């Protein structure tokens, strides 16, 4: 029980399968493929900066929509009776268990030309294309990751001491004040982990935009996937940049979270 030896296999494992791969990525990002040091992969990576920015934008919009949808949902959930809370969280999680590709493909079916949505709306006299644009990609992202936003916010919110809310009420707060001054500040850790859990995967994933987006909606994940099979060095450089960016994002989120906790 007191032994530290139990960690040895794990440390060995992390060294071989986590640290060394990162070192290899770094190594091939500064490499011309023949073992010489070069910055060329980064120059080539710079060519994709537009795609990079667009991916971040799509991820940002998707995260914001998830937050706007999830926050009231989590709040409503905590105010329901225990058994209904359980049922609704289960219902939220079931689609998450469906295969990632099948979930996106379901949206391809739903949004396609002459698909169910198209047919339903044309009965009302509305015609349009619903697939092959940025909006469709955002819808797909929100669909993929919405439960990742709801669950952490809900978990944190349901742990708020009801005594605090009661105290605020006794001291004359109305519903809005309780929500703004008690529940919201206390739920920030959940919001932060929700934002992280949605933003990181949606900024880096691929396929969603391939299936739902148009030709100019290609995301940085798709670029890495395409380029890696032909030019590993540039692929490594883009991956490295993405990792650094995500790391900076996480540090910022943490700072923000801590500050709120102190205030």
């Amino acid at each position, binding site marked *: *029980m*007191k*032994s*530290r030896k*139990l*960690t*040895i*296999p*794990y*440390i060995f*494992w*992390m060294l*071989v*399968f*986590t640290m060394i*791969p*990162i070192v*290899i*990525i770094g190594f091939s990002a500064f490499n011309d493929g023949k073992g010489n040091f070069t910055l060329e992969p980064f120059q080539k990576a710079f060519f994709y900066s537009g795609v990079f920015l667009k991916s971040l934008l799509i991820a940002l919009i998707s995260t914001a929509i998830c937050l706007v*949808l999830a926050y*009231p*949902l989590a709040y*409503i959930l905590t*105010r329901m009776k225990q058994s209904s809370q*359980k049922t*609704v969280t*289960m*219902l*939220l*999680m*079931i*689609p998450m*268990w*469906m*295969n*990632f*590709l*099948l979930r996106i*493909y*379901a949206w391809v*079916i*739903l949004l*396609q030309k*002459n*698909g*169910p949505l198209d047919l339903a709306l044309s009965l009302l006299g509305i015609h349009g294309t619903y697939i092959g644009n940025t909006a469709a990609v955002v819808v797909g992202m929100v669909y993929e990751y919405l439960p990742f936003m709801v669950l952490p916010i809900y978990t944190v919110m349901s742990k708020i001491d009801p005594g605090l809310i009661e105290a605020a009420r006794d001291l004359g707060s109305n519903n809005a004040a309780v929500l703004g001054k008690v529940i919201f500040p206390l739920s920030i850790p959940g919001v932060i982990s929700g934002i*992280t859990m949605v933003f*990181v995967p949606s*900024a880096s994933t691929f*396929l969603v935009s391939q*299936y739902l987006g148009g030709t100019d909606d290609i995301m940085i*994940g798709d670029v*890495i996937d395409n380029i*890696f099979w032909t030019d*590993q060095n540039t*692929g*490594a450089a883009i*991956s490295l940049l993405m990792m650094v960016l*995500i790391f900076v994002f*996480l540090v910022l989120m943490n700072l923000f979270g801590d500050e709120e906790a102190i205030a």
Partner: protein
Amino acid sequence: MMKQKNGALSKLYIALILFFLYAPIIVMIVLSFNKGNTIVWKGFSLKWYGELFQDRNLMGALANTLSIAVLASFFATILGTSAAIGINNFKGKTRSIIQNVSNIPIISPDIVMGVSLMLLFTFLGMIFHFQMGYVTVLISHICFCVPLVVLNVMPRLRHMDRSIYDAARDLGCNEWQAFFKVVLHELMPGIVSGLLISFTYSLDDFIITHFTQGAKFQNLSTEIYAMLRRKIPPTINALSTLLFVAIIVIMVIINLRDRHEEKMKNEK
């Protein structure tokens, strides 16, 4: 009066969100029984289900997915639990370094992890003359599962009362007995949730498998990916429906078991 109005609005909101989550799945289920192979309804038929079961590749991929998920979550649970117990005995800087490194696979995007493991395996493959396949996929899955287990076991360890281990020792258990009968028992809820989360992550994984699968290995996700590349076969709808039914059945069983356990506890 005010409260009732709020309640109705809340219910409507939840219903709308659930509609958003389930509408695509329902459309797929309906289409899986369609005789035609487009979205135009041509009559009821089970033929896509028949074709699904005759698809050897898909059935093989399903078997691979299940066996990888079982093995990866099993090994990850053992590795992760022992690691968590060990980490708990470290203090200060060493401990925070180990924990930070162990968080890397969780925070780094799947695609970066997939790409970096692929580079590692091609590098090692050149030295030791092997090719990527079942084993490399299994290793990769263990990689992203272990930190999940550590993450789930750690809080249980922190809240565990150390004196019960000492008590077991005082009452005549040797170290191993005390470990298996007391410590493991205390950690069990964390271990089980780590195992379940690992299992579901492994089942669902596409990106990491995509990069580490090599030329011949397919799991369910990569097989679906290949199918969608070729054409859009209606058997996919049948597959989704069956998976959906399986998930519902598992969820209901878990829920019933929980309720049963709660009842037993109350009766005690």
